[in-house]
């Protein structure tokens, strides 16, 4: 009898904090100081608060394209907290939390949402590509950047963020395969939030887990509780340590849930998710509630601190949106000027024609 491989893996989701914020038996908290723990929570709270207000600003017409990220704060913040400022980030459009943590300004996030000039002009001191729209299109970029670090024997890491739907794309396969072949200093962070717009994971793949796909590429893979900030931190930290030492890339699957709609452009999750399911995630598995319980058990957090962070963040947002609303929206000329290092004659002519039309108007 020919022996075929077992189809079923025994999924073992890495968890440090249980749903009540207690350390799971046999696990230990990562080596983080009290201040670092507080900072981690503070950032998650900032992102949660940002998300709520951004949704309101969108409804008021003051923001444009916006993909809510509430529910995914542990995945986005605890992972980035485990990396260095010198590491390279390749986010997709829902990963504004990772980008804010890595150093872009709130103004830039708003400019991006409003489709204005400089919304994707990443500052020189932030190592990040503009957010990716094409699903998994940036996975090979992170493989290439991680490969570059390996070739030069640099200790940087490239990390790409994407969702469960992205794992069906060809570029996911090609990117992970390249990274594996070249031992790239890359981390591929899949935020498995259970749905690609409306399509559930069960219709996306027959694999028991996304993490197990790593096995086929001969790279490290781990499934973590994506709503457990400490587990996400630890898994990312270890992946980065391995990559820096030249021990190859890691696929991290963070099991999480998007509380809001896919985007603010008319998606109604009620058409494809049950209320019970949404409530279960929001009550039992909220990444902020769990982490706050842990901090409270160590007497590290209070209601006053919670309110202070929220107030400061909302104030920051108010100032930023007001500032952005007065900024130039950009022009066709900018677009033409930025496309090539040296603008070709035909395009120069189009610019002149456009400018003279605009002047004569």
């Amino acid at each position, binding site marked *: 009898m020919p022996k075929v491989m077992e189809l079923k893996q025994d999924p073992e989701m890495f968890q440090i904090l249980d749903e009540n914020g207690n350390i799971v038996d046999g696990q230990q908290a990562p080596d983080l100081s009290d201040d670092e723990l507080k900072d981690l929570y503070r950032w998650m709270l900032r992102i949660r608060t940002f998300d709520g207000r951004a949704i309101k600003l969108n409804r008021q017409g003051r923001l444009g394209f916006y993909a809510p990220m509430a529910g995914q704060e542990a995945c986005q913040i605890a992972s980035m907290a485990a990396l260095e400022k010198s590491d*390279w980030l390749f986010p997709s459009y829902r990963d504004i939390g990772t980008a804010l943590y890595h150093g872009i300004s709130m103004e830039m996030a708003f400019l991006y949402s409003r489709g204005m*000039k*400089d919304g*994707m*002009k*990443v*500052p*020189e001191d932030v190592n990040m*590509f*503009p957010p990716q729209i*094409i699903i998994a*299109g940036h*996975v*090979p*970029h*992170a*493989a*290439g*950047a*991680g*490969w*570059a*670090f390996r*070739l*030069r024997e640099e200790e940087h890491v*490239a990390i790409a963020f994407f969702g469960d739907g992205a794992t069906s794309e*060809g*570029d996911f*396969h*090609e*990117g992970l*395969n*390249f990274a594996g*072949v070249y031992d790239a200093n890359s981390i591929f962070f899949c935020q498995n939030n259970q749905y690609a717009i409306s399509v559930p994971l069960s219709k996306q793949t027959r694999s028991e887990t996304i993490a197990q796909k790593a096995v086929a590429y001969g790279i490290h893979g781990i499934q973590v509780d994506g709503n457990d900030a400490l587990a996400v931190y630890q898994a990312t930290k270890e992946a980065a340590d391995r990559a820096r030492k030249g021990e190859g890339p890691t696929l991290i699957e963070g099991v999480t849930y998007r509380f809001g709609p896919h985007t603010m452009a008319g998606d109604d999750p009620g058409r494809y998710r049950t209320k019970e399911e949404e409530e279960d995630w929001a009550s039992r598995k909220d990444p902020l509630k769990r982490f706050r319980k842990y901090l409270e058990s160590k007497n590290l957090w209070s209601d006053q601190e919670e309110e202070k962070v929220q107030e400061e963040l909302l104030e920051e947002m108010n100032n930023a949106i007001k500032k952005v609303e007065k900024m130039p929206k950009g022009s066709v000329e*900018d*677009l033409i*000027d*930025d*496309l*090539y*290092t040296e603008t*070709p*004659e*035909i*395009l120069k002519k189009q610019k002149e024609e456009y400018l003279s039309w605009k002047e004569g108007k």
Partner: protein
Amino acid sequence: MATMTLIKAINDAMRVEMERDENVIVLGEDVGVNGGVFRATADLYQTFGEKRSFDTPLAESGIIGASIGLASQGFRPVPEIQFAGFVYECMDQISTQAARLRMRSGGRFNVPITIRIPYGGGVKTPEMHSDSLEALFLHSPGVKVVVPSNPHDAKGLLISAIRDDDPVIFYEPMKLYRSVKADVSEEAFTVPLGKANVVKEGSDVTLIAYGAMVPLAEKAAQQAEKERGVKAEVIDLRTISPLDLETIIRSVEKTNRAVVIHEAAQTGGVGAELVARINEEAILSLEAPVVRVTGFDTPYPLTAIEDEWLPTVDRVCAGIYKTLDF
């Protein structure tokens, strides 16, 4: 000076650039140890080692996507797509990712990659290898498209492409790889991108071609002179995007007639763009509609009929006479 085939000139361009700049690397399917299926990257692996010349997994999108990531860290990758027909596999990485990154990032990121692609017919490949898909990239803002027609230009244009800070698609006419030879300097030299070349002066009609159609146009010019005393001017575009309108328009204003020749399908091709530009810039100089001699609006055929499908000297001459007899 050394006598070089077109493929040797391409190889030599990569050699001199890899010597000059340690950030220049070559990668692709069979590109490393084997030196490429056409031997374009022959000896580069042996000369520059496994950290400059790479055999990649067989995945076009991965090749271009990884090149973009490498470029973000200061490398100047020269990826090869093994045959033009495979380019659809990496259309997103070329036209959406590489082409737009500079504009999207407000000038923060350049993508200095040169994508080498053997293209065109007449060499009896299996199906889906011999396409001429340059018009796809003429219609992709943010990339440049270059096509050499002889060994000297191949080397000089490829060096310019590698030094260019924007993505360049470098289409190499397979039919000319080993069928033409010329004296080419072994030193580094450049032929500028975006500049067409008048390869033969004439006064009666302008023939506009690129790649393997340039020697064909030259033969047609000779035949038309013999048959009907026609003095044809032949322009080698060298660069399809951006187009060198100045050279084209100056010529058409002199000859008042033009024939555009390409292997690619006719509708929506480079010829269509040239006709539109000539109409916009020089319609009052025209004595006859611009004629297109091209492949047909079908996919590239199987080999048995490829010589009938491709433009021939007789078909180009018929095109010339059509403009003259209008």
